[in-house]
């Protein structure tokens, strides 16, 4: 986006497709109406945009598509409050505003050649999906693990993609494992023999029996605030360095560009803005900046 443009101006995007993922989450496929803006829109996995419902407000949403696939981008939006509820009412062809991308994103280049352990909880799958497909598309990573925990079978996001990878993943160097807290009768994975990779439980249960080469592995975590502590313990138990553990965090945000102050975390020795210093942080950042997680 051009140089002397107002940071807070948003650009028109057209909704190309709306897809129900779960009763609470929808996947929006979007494209900028202005081809020039569309071409200039470069993002990294882990970055987010600010969605603008003009006349009502703005909210941050992670980009869940991968930059390796061009011409569109996708947002997975949970119906959580006033804006997102409105967004869920929108239809194909509707126009909304977008500004961004913002945030640091995951250091994908730096991690090339390594194993990636993606640990997702609930909606945390959204930003990690971007990483997942980026990694698979680029083929520059050793082995990719996806440990994904949800409440129930019905809450699984991107179910067809997950099913596909459960089935064919290993051929692409990708291991997908799933855990859900409540068993439900409609769960097809149990019937169809995915059982070893699918279990009832929480996401940390999926680590059982998995060993990683800690000198060549990065862990990338995203999920609800309570999840981090348990997952990180699991990783530290395997002596994965805090510098190799990446997390993407959520805070209230208004501007997305380090002005509005809501996402400030830390203490007198270290203050961070989640929006511009993050939303991706290492666990080392968390150790040195209290209150990060």
């Amino acid at each position, binding site marked *: 986006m051009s140089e002397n443009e*107002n*940071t*807070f*101006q*948003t650009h028109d995007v057209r909704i190309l497709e709306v897809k129900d993922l779960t009763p609470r989450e929808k996947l929006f496929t979007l494209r900028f109406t202005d081809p020039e803006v569309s071409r200039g829109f470069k993002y990294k996995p882990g970055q987010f945009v600010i969605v603008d419902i*003009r*006349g*009502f*407000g*703005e909210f941050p949403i992670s980009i869940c598509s991968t930059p390796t696939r061009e011409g569109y981008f996708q947002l997975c939006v*949970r119906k*959580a*409050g006033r804006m*997102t509820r409105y967004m869920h009412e929108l239809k194909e062809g509707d*126009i909304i*505003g977008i500004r961004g991308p913002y945030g640091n994103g995951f250091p994908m280049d730096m991690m090339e050649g390594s194993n990636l352990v993606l640990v997702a909880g609930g909606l945390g799958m959204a930003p990690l999906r971007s990483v997942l497909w980026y990694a698979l598309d680029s083929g520059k990573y050793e082995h990719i693990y996806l440990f994904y925990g949800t409440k129930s079978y019905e809450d699984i996001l991107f179910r067809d993609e997950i099913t596909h990878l459960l089935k064919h993943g290993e051929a692409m160097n990708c291991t997908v494992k799933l855990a859900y807290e409540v068993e439900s009768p409609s769960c097809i994975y149990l019937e169809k023999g995915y059982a070893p990779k699918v279990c009832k439980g929480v996401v940390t249960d999926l680590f059982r029996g998995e060993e990683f080469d800690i000198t060549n592995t990065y862990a990338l975590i995203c999920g*609800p*605030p309570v999840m981090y502590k348990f997952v990180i313990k699991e990783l530290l138990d395997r002596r994965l360095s805090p510098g190799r553990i990446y997390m993407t965090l*959520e*805070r*209230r945000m*208004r*501007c997305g*560009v*380090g*002005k*509005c*102050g*809501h996402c*400030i*975390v*830390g*203490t*007198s*020795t*270290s*203050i961070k803005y989640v929006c511009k210093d993050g939303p991706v942080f290492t666990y080392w950042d968390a150790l040195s900046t*209290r*209150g990060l997680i």
Partner: protein
Amino acid sequence: MRYVKLPNENFEEFFNSLKNWGNIYAPTKQGKIYSFRKVETLSEVSLDYNRTMLPPKKFFIKPRDEMLKLKDNKWEECIEVEKIVLFGVHSCDIHGLQILDKVYLEEPVDPYYKKRRENSIIVGISCMPDEYCFCKSLGTDFAMSGFDLFLHELPDGWLVRVGSVKGHEIAWANEELFEEITEEDLKNFRAFEEKRAKAFKKKLNKEGLADMLDLAYDSPVWKKYEKICLGCGNCNMVCPTCRCYEVCDRWINAYEAVRERRYDSCFMASHGLVAGGHNFRPTRLDRFRHRYYCKNYFDPEAGFNCVGCGRCDEFCPAKIEHVKVLDEVREALE
């Protein structure tokens, strides 16, 4: 730094000449508080004010600030810029603005702040501390930059420090009003500064302050103040370096809206609330501590986030004293 002297008898003329550079805003007395208001004559100005209630940040990020205007489902920018001369800014507030500069002028630049900053002239003025001031402890009692002109009181006029090209131009345009500095003037200037240095009643011990606070995360002192603090947010609103804002869209007629930001406060429960109802600072204790951590964060490049202006103390209904809280936290740790 360039120094010149403005004799008392030329002061008013100099003041009036500033109108050529923009509308003059200066401290005025409003009831029992001071406020930067637009003034026409020198007689309206309270030169000996201690501090205004709202700091000069109100000119650059307005308490309520219309950013964009919605017309035909498109946002139009609404930046009105006025050329202003901020007359009579104290050193601590100049430091406060510099801290805001770091935030708002860093990429991506806040266009509103930038434009207003570019259209303003800052004329500083020397002051005498009252019982609330502790800027000396933080090193913000003297401004080395961040102003165009800075006036220091002398027995027979003002010692003027010229701090920018713009300041130089202003002095130039009024050449006949200024004189060269004499030895005597410098002596008086130093005497004033000494007298001022002695006048500080409040002192903050900043020895290892940031580390000390970090260690005192679970200090019982926070608990004590959780009970006393009203959570009213007044301290945030008046602070020259507090800058959180909230954004809200507002309909002005059936089909047009404005996007407006307003000062927010980290004492509000919603400040740390995210979707799903999780609150990162759920209690008043968390919020109280957060403010102290934010204000006393030590940035190696810019120093502390607090400039010691004393506003939060003066306007806290619960009479909570910034320095006292920090002293108590330190004491409890030892």
